[in-house]
């Protein structure tokens, strides 16, 4: 007995230490970035000043005064919020139909949706830019970004919602049908209240994915609809001259999402594990 307890305590300590090490390893770049954001560009590139420097807010002031941070941030919020809403508006009915009225092809449709995620984005870069710019004239608009972000995230959102909806006993939905509820009533009165946790997790994750998206948001915008990803991209200098400034911009771009994630940790874990952790 004693030996077993000993081993357990040992493995528990070592596991804790290991977890902290891995955690710090992952956190270090962010930590370094935040530190750098309080340095001048000159100090930022010198390793000997890693910890010893005089903090300055210049980068942040510069960013908000000269680089229009708030407009980029507003664009990020607008596109992410509306893309998330749009994705859910399409995703909830789709997942509902597949979970409760499956046809023979439902499994194939789900697989096909996931397979669209395997197409390399770069492969359609040219048609996307050309068509939206010269043909549709929606290049660099909120509309385009919202559309693209929604479509990118729709497969994963439908998959997640489908998994959550599957957990609702079929009989409850059927009881609703017997009780005379309409299809829309079924969704509003039964499905959404019962899957509320899952829907919230999905929405949160979708929002984060939209916020972090960089490939298309950078390439399909110039100024009007440009998001924080574009702001970071715009401040990137290959020679590494403006590390301080870049760090401040990056920190200000990831800051909101980290704070959001921190407050919604439980929902996020539930979302990422598809509700396996209750």
């Amino acid at each position, binding site marked *: 007995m004693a030996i077993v307890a000993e081993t357990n305590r040992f493995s528990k300590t070592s596991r804790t230490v290991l977890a902290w090490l891995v955690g710090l390893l992952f956190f270090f770049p962010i930590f370094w970035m935040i530190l750098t954001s309080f340095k001048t560009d000159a100090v930022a590139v010198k390793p000997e000043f890693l910890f010893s420097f005089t903090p300055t807010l210049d980068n942040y002031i510069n960013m908000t005064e000269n680089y229009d941070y708030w407009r980029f941030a507003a664009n990020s919020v607008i596109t992410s919020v509306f893309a998330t809403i749009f994705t859910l508006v399409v995703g909830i009915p789709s997942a509902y139909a597949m979970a409760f009225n499956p046809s023979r092809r439902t499994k194939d449709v789900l697989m096909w949706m996931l397979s669209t995620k395997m197409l390399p984005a770069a492969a359609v870069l040219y048609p996307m830019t050309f068509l939206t710019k010269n043909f549709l004239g929606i290049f660099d608009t909120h509309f385009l970004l919202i559309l693209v972000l929604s479509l990118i995230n729709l497969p994963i959102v439908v998959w997640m919602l489908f998994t959550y909806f599957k957990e609702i*006993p079929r*009989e409850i939905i*059927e*009881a*609703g*049908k*017997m*009780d*005379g509820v309409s299809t829309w009533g079924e969704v509003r009165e039964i499905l959404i209240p*019962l899957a509320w946790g899952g829907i919230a997790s999905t929405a949160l994750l979708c929002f984060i994915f939209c916020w972090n998206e960089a490939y298309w948001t950078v390439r399909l915008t110039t100024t009007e609809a440009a998001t924080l990803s574009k702001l970071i991209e715009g401040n990137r200098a290959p020679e590494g001259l403006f590390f301080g400034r870049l760090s401040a911009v990056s920190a200000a771009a990831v800051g909101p999402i980290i704070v959001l994630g921190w407050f919604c940790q439980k929902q996020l874990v539930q979302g990422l594990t598809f509700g396996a952790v209750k």
Partner: protein
Amino acid sequence: MGRIVLENVTKKFGDLEVIPPLNLTIEDGEFVVFVGPSGCGKSTLLRLIAGLEEVTSGRILIDGEDVTNIPPSKRGLAMVFQTYALYPHMSVRKNIAFPLRMAGMNEAEQNTRIEAAATALNLTDYLDRKPGQLSGGQRQRVAIGRAIVRDPTAFLFDEPLSNLDAALRVGMRLEISEMHKKLKTTMIYVTHDQVEAMTMADKIVVLQSGRVEQVGSPLDLYREPRNAFVAGFIGSPKMNFIDGEKAGTLGAHTIGVRPEHVQICPKGEGDVWQGKVGVAEHLGSDTFIHVHGIDGCDPMTVRAGGEVKINHGDTVYLSAQMDQIHKFDSEGHRVS
């Protein structure tokens, strides 16, 4: 009113034919029980009537109206599920009110009906609780409450008592029977338990592999089972089937005799069989004796009234009431 007619109804799941062409009439006000072994298609049949499954072919009529392509909500039927299927996020009151609210009934009328149902089902003290805070029996009452407030044309029950413990099951069985006597509404009740079928039904429909084996009152089925399957399914303990020579002398392939129609008798006083006692089950009111070593039927079950002093290994002589012997041919059909 609630007369339900099934005309040549079939159901396939893909290539699997669960219900071969089936005809059945359920009269208004009848308590009909669908009984049969697990997987024989009872639930499927009930769900077809409810509209939760689409028929592959055939027609369903309720009070003369063809409802085959009408959605469940428009058929005027109420269903009680084995798993209760209550709305977990709503209080008992809201659960019971749900169908009324969906029908657009005004709140005063809703409340009158909820109070009446809650009183009848002893739920008055629980109206503000959530289903998660109730026992299994209480949950099933809520499910029944949700069904009766609507005043449906017919009630559909799918094994509603299977998730309850034995004592509660007997109580609820009586309550549902009493409810039927009072409401006089058509009820269709699915169960795999022949005791429930016998005690509750006006009319029993025995199903096997989706086929109707026999339709009749409990006592019709008990007295004159149309085939060996029904004979073996109805009655507890199960009917004894005897093959071979003894059956041959009576002009049958197999004969059947119920345990209550076999007696232990002294040697030479009309004894037909001789065997050794295996297990004797003493219930007080009855004793079920399993007798081994009988040609063509091993063991034979004998029901002796009251307490019987008998031991394992005793040799016993058995006689049967000859007018209570059922004869079947090699396909299991009754021959008379």
